């Protein structure tokens, strides 16, 4: 390559630690974190489906974990991450159309994702428990 030093001198954009933390930036990071953590959720789904396909004994083991306090907490966080990532994704789909990119809209989207994901997760669990107690 010879004595080409252009690459080394090329200016770098500042890393995100430089910036004052902003809500929209945190939501962007949260979208990545929720997405990556859903990989763990996918393993849990596989574990559950394999257990059901393997028969009653395997199912009992997995089911006792998911029915425990820790298991329920993990599932609650999983469903929250799913809904959070889903709302964040819908926000991205809207942006793909070229709409909602102004400062006011992105703030509304950020708060909408936080409040919406929490509310919808709670609603899903309350509905689930209500349906099960009614059945």
């Amino acid at each position, binding site marked *: 390559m010879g004595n080409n030093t252009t690459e080394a001198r090329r200016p770098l954009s500042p890393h995100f630690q430089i910036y004052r933390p902003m809500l929209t930036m945190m939501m962007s990071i949260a979208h990545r974190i929720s997405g990556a953590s859903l990989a763990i959720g996918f393993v849990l789904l596989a574990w559950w489906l*394999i257990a059901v396909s393997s028969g009653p004994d395997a199912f009992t083991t997995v089911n006792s974990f998911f029915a425990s306090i820790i298991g329920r907490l993990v599932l609650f966080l999983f469903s929250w991450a799913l809904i959070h990532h889903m709302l964040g994704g819908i926000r991205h789909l809207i942006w793909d159309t070229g709409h909602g990119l102004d400062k006011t809209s992105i703030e509304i989207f950020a708060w909408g994702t936080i409040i919406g994901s929490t509310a919808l997760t709670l609603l899903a669990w309350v509905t689930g428990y209500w349906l099960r107690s009614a059945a």
Partner: protein
Amino acid sequence: MATPLAKVRGLGAAHRGTETFWRQRMTAVANIPLVIFLILSIVTHIGADYEPVRAYLARPLVALAMLALVISASIHMRIGLKEIIEDYVHGQGAKVAALLLVSFFAIGVGLACTLALVKISLGS
């Protein structure tokens, strides 16, 4: 912002490049109803006995939706995880290794779920 169509038509030297973007959006749209279905399936079956859960997953429409979710989500997950690695892992060797690992993981989990669903549906 807007790219002139004439430039896009050629798609540059590689003559391709938007498939991943489009696939991620397509699976994202598909995942919306499927994820709602998954969450409702979870919250209505926590702590339920074996037979009701097996019978539920063996119902054709439930199995179909679950299979669609597994396929769509594993494609979406593979693209997403690859993107994270491409952004943060810079060493050439480590990057290639991580990309392979992530692809094998996504395909493996997707296949495992598919096999389980097929087994449940066929009742074996």
